[in-house]
């Protein structure tokens, strides 16, 4: 608790700096990453983030110390080389994109690890902490580093905001952009530069291995919540910042803990929550929608059974008779009976179930839709009468009054369905 208060009240100005840094980093990378996720270029982010490692090591070797300018430039140049090689190989060979990206990623990363080992064997006392670049350590960020990383993050955010309509066009319909005269090649180049910069600013805090997650996961998780680009960018940024701050806090409390993996754990958790609980697109709300639909079909079938009883001259059905006509579904039927009593469509007298006037009208409506649809299939699609029942059984629950009116009109208010059964109307007496 003490740690918590100490961290979040920012008594220590260096903590405040780190939190500002991680916030800017989170916003910048989520912002770029969301566009590349929409552009279906998620793998490229992964390749770039692995490919900056040799640049970091070369920057260190040249500077002889952990000089942020050397390291950032080295990382940027090797990331740029990887991006350029990917597109050059794609346009000059017949290799597929996934093969190219996988090779570039592993070759660059392998070379980076070799360089890292060489540095560690060299006995340079400055090399301590260099392997933090693999998994990241936000707490180890110094104030002078922050000016560079934070400054670059601000640059990314401003550029993306200025070019918002251009980047949207790049992702949605680049050919149209070229047709209206926009320099789409240049815009693609700027976007790639921003993508590399977003990776570069994350190497100290998150590490090269996991930076791709910070690029792609926020956008992918936010996609469950909205269908609008503006909201998507805001939600993605929010997810990214929350995870960044929590990850940093954990590395602060447990000094041996690298930041990157914890940020990714938080992000994955947010993605999982989005996947399960987001309204409309989440698994839970889809399951609930499906369940309530299934319950409605059960209720509809019960109403139909009571209607059939009326057609055969029985004013009511006993509960036993109902159980008999729906074997294996007794608990569902009990539920349906309770629901229908509550909504006033049936009444229960002793053990006898009777349709109310309202219930009669609703039951007629369902039977009518069923038989109208059967007739439509038979007359307009030339489907034999013994083949029309199954689809009608499914569609009777979803046909709207609008479609019903269309069917009535198209079929000229028919009296009988293909099985010569009466199509019930509200004014019919049963």
């Amino acid at each position, binding site marked *: 608790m003490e740690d918590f208060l100490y961290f979040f009240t920012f008594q220590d100005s260096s903590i405040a700096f780190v939190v500002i840094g991680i916030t800017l980093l989170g916003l910048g990378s989520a912002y770029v990453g969301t566009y590349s996720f929409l552009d279906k270029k998620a793998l490229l982010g992964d390749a770039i983030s692995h490919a900056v490692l040799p640049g970091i090591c070369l920057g260190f070797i040249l500077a002889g110390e952990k000089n942020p300018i050397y390291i950032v430039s080295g990382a940027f140049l090797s990331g740029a080389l990887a991006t350029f090689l990917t597109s050059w190989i794609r346009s000059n060979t017949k290799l597929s994109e996934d093969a190219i990206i996988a090779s570039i990623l592993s070759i660059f990363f392998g070379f980076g690890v070799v360089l890292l080992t060489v540095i560690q064997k060299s006995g340079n006392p400055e090399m301590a902490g260099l392997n933090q670049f693999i998994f990241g350590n936000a707490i180890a960020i110094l104030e002078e580093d922050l000016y560079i990383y934070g400054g670059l993050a601000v640059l990314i955010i401003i550029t993306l905001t200025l070019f918002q309509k251009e980047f*949207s066009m790049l992702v*949605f*319909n680049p050919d*149209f*952009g070229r*047709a209206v*005269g926009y320099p789409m090649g240049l815009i693609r180049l700027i976007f790639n530069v921003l993508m590399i910069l977003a990776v570069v600013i994350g190497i100290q805090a998150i590490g090269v291995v996991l930076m791709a997650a910070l690029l792609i996961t926020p956008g992918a998780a936010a996609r469950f919540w909205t269908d*609008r*680009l503006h909201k998507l960018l805001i939600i993605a940024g929010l997810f990214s910042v929350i995870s960044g701050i929590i990850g940093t806090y954990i590395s602060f409390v447990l000094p041996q803990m690298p930041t990157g993996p914890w940020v990714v754990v938080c992000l994955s958790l947010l993605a999982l929550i989005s996947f399960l609980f987001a309204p409309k697109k989440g698994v839970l709300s889809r399951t609930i929608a499906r369940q309530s639909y299934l319950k409605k079909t059960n209720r509809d079938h019960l109403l139909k059974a009571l209607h059939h009883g009326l057609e055969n001259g029985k004013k009511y059905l006993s509960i036993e008779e109902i159980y008999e006509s729906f074997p294996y579904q007794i608990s569902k039927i009990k539920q349906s009976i309770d629901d229908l009593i509550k909504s006033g469509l049936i009444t229960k007298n002793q053990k006898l179930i009777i349709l109310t006037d309202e219930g009669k009208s609703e039951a007629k409506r369902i039977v009518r839709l069923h038989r109208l649809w059967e007739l439509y299939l038979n007359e307009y699609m030339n489907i034999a009468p013994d083949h029309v029942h199954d689809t009608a059984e499914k569609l009777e629950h979803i046909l709207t009054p609008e479609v019903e009116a269309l069917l009535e009109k198209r079929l000229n208010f028919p009296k009988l369905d293909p099985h010569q059964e009466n199509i019930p109307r509200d004014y019919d007496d049963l």
Partner: protein
Amino acid sequence: MITQIDNPILEIHDLIVSYDQSPVLWNVDLSLPSGKLIGILGPNGAGKSTLIKAIMGLVTPSGGYVKIFDKTLEQVRSKISYVPQRESVDWNFPASVLDVVMMGTYGKLGLFKRPGKKEKEIALSCLDQVGMMSFVNRQISELSGGQQQRVFIARALAQEADLYLMDEPFAGVDMSTETAIFNLLKEMTAKGKTVIVVHHDIHSAMNYFDWIIMLNLHLVASGPTDEVISEELLRKTYGGKLNLLTKVTDLIKQKDFNPLKN
């Protein structure tokens, strides 16, 4: 049968286009009158879309040139509007109908500038023209094929151009939408605009278009509809096998370079 025109709105001179090694358009040479509804007809793989893309500068020709209003494309770009194939974009992109139609105003707006009230008004009036006013805020993935096609046409209208190039605007569209789109195109040509449409159905083409271009890797015909629609030309476009052309294409493919490139 190729009818050439004086003072054409569009002149294509000996245009050759190749993808990688294989030529897809051979020496297309034609000129088109203004204020007409013009159809490009031909079988699958005949190079219809490629011709439009070459006019729009989206593919680089191996030879020949295109002149529009007697000028180069760059000089008159703001007067030309392009409707790409509906399948060429990802309709799951998080955008509303209005967002997409607003893109039509981006050309005149220029880089950096944000669309404002004026652009929104243009977009709304174009949506009204294609009968999509009630879908302004709809997510584009929820639209039917015909509605997506209308959104693309509204976006083209928002460009306020004089020459319209449309790639298969009738593809995946039901009969009533087809008629509605066709009537709209008729209105546009009545106002003096020129509309060039890639189309696949010969029967409706006869009724729709004032001028027809028939294409099958090479130019078979270009002229007023009643002069061009003949059994012989249709057979040349759709029926005739181009054994010789295919053989030469194979020859070129086997080389390491494309001899047709400048």
